[in-house]
């Protein structure tokens, strides 16, 4: 591929967004779009600049990120541990899987009223909801990943005298890792969704609070800013997982070819 066509290739995905933004800005400037419906992008950028300078944006982002991270760590940790347990120990699967599947089928956002009754509207409520939301995708994919590890490899490892812990660390866990990482990416999506909903319903800090507060004062530009920040944070988390995948799955032929193309 020549240098020029590579640049063109890199540009193509951005053509449509840039055109849309240009159309939006023009429509807002010419007054076709009321600022209450959709403010001009330049107004959003100004709102971004203001909230960045007085520190409110970073404050809210930090609060939201902390909730997301804690919730993910707790929920993901429990999901992973349960998945390993049920995946590796048949009696644990018999005992736990049915119950977990029943709980999984409850939409976790449906328990918000109950959560508010239990925890009030403090940090615990949001972290709890995020944890519940990210638990199940990680549980399911860990369980599935462990169950689908090549039996032949496990048998080989036994023949070659690996202890149970070595078998788990060197054969089962790496074999299940691609599936676990799929679960993690899925959990990240649910994590942001849950956080947005729970912050919108009741909060005194965080991006959700920032946007709801702005809605009261008809600051559509700040509302839009909050939405964009959510999108960016989601994209950032997804990129981080993809980087983790590249790091952890560098042995995988699919990742090797990708890296060869990039190099």
């Amino acid at each position: 591929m020549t240098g020029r066509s590579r640049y063109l290739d890199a540009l193509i995905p951005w053509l449509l967004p840039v055109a849309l933004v240009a159309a939006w800005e023009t429509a807002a400037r010419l007054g076709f779009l009321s600022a209450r419906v959709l403010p001009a992008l330049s107004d959003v950028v100004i709102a971004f600049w203001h909230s960045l300078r007085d520190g409110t944006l970073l404050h809210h982002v930090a609060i939201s990120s902390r909730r997301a991270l804690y919730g993910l760590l707790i929920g993901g940790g429990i999901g992973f541990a349960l998945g390993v347990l049920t995946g590796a120990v048949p009696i644990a699967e018999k005992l736990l899987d049915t119950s977990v599947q029943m709980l999984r089928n409850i939409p976790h956002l449906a328990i918000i009223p109950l959560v508010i009754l239990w925890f009030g509207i403090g940090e615990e409520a949001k972290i709890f909801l995020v944890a519940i939301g990210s638990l199940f995708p990680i549980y399911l994919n860990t369980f599935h990943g462990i169950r689908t590890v090549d039996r032949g490899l496990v048998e080989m490892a036994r023949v070659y005298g690996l202890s149970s812990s070595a078998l788990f660390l060197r054969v089962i866990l790496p074999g299940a890792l691609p599936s676990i990482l799929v679960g993690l990416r899925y959990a990240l999506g649910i994590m942001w969704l849950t956080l947005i909903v729970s912050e919108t319903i009741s909060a005194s800090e965080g991006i959700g609070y920032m946007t709801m507060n702005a809605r009261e004062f008809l600051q559509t530009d700040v509302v839009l800013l909050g939405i964009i920040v959510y999108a960016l944070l989601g994209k950032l988390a997804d990129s981080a997982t993809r980087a983790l995948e590249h790091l952890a799955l560098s042995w995988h032929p699919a990742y090797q070819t990708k890296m060869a193309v990039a190099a």
Partner: protein
Amino acid sequence: MRAANINLRWVSPLGFDDPAALVPPAADRDIAGRPGKGLAIRFENTVKSFGERQVIAGLDLEIPAGQFVAIVGRSGGGKTTLLRLLSGLEAPNQGRVLIDDNPVAGLQSSVRLLFQEARLLPWQRVISNVGIARTPGWREAAQAALADVGLADRAHDWPAVLSGGQRQRVALARALINHPGVLLLDEPFGALDALTRQEMHQLVTQIWQTHGFTTVLITHDVREAVTLADRVLVLRDGRIALDLSVPNARPRAAGNAHLAALEAAVLKEV
């Protein structure tokens, strides 16, 4: 990979009953020059059933230390079960399996098994696959074993970039690293192309000659069996239908008339 250059004087240590028509060529029966690290194998009236189906039906078999035995037979004839009994992956329902006069109970560290597929861990580099048991000093031992199979320069590659034959060679190195007394080969060459298979034959013969372990090879390929082994067994319905010794000296030429006659004799019984 130049097996032909290594010319150890080695022939079958014991004469087994040949069909009268097959006159073995004159052979030198001196085995003193070999490092005798192989372990003897004995099956005593061994029975193994899966549910109603009796796969091994009262097997009595003795394999002296260091012998290269090939077992041929149709699919479902009990060949793989026999190897799994030897490696301790399965336990017999009746009778005993003894290695070096000790009954096999559980997995045996002196027995190594080469599977039909290489079964390398794709997430570990070649050298870490060879030293999978992580015994003390495994890096040096793994490097030496890789050199034995001619893959010393691939130690730090991922298994995914190796060819099928190279993967089987890595698996062979993994089996050799702790100097097993018995090497079990479960059709490890079946999926390879003809040229690669021939290379693997030379390699296995050469390594067997230097290490002196007892070898049990399972194969569908009768020609492969008579080319490689000291002794060919036909397993049919869980019993030994034919027990034939192959006294030809190594290296064995492909077109040898005596081998062809043995091959025909085996094929009649399969």
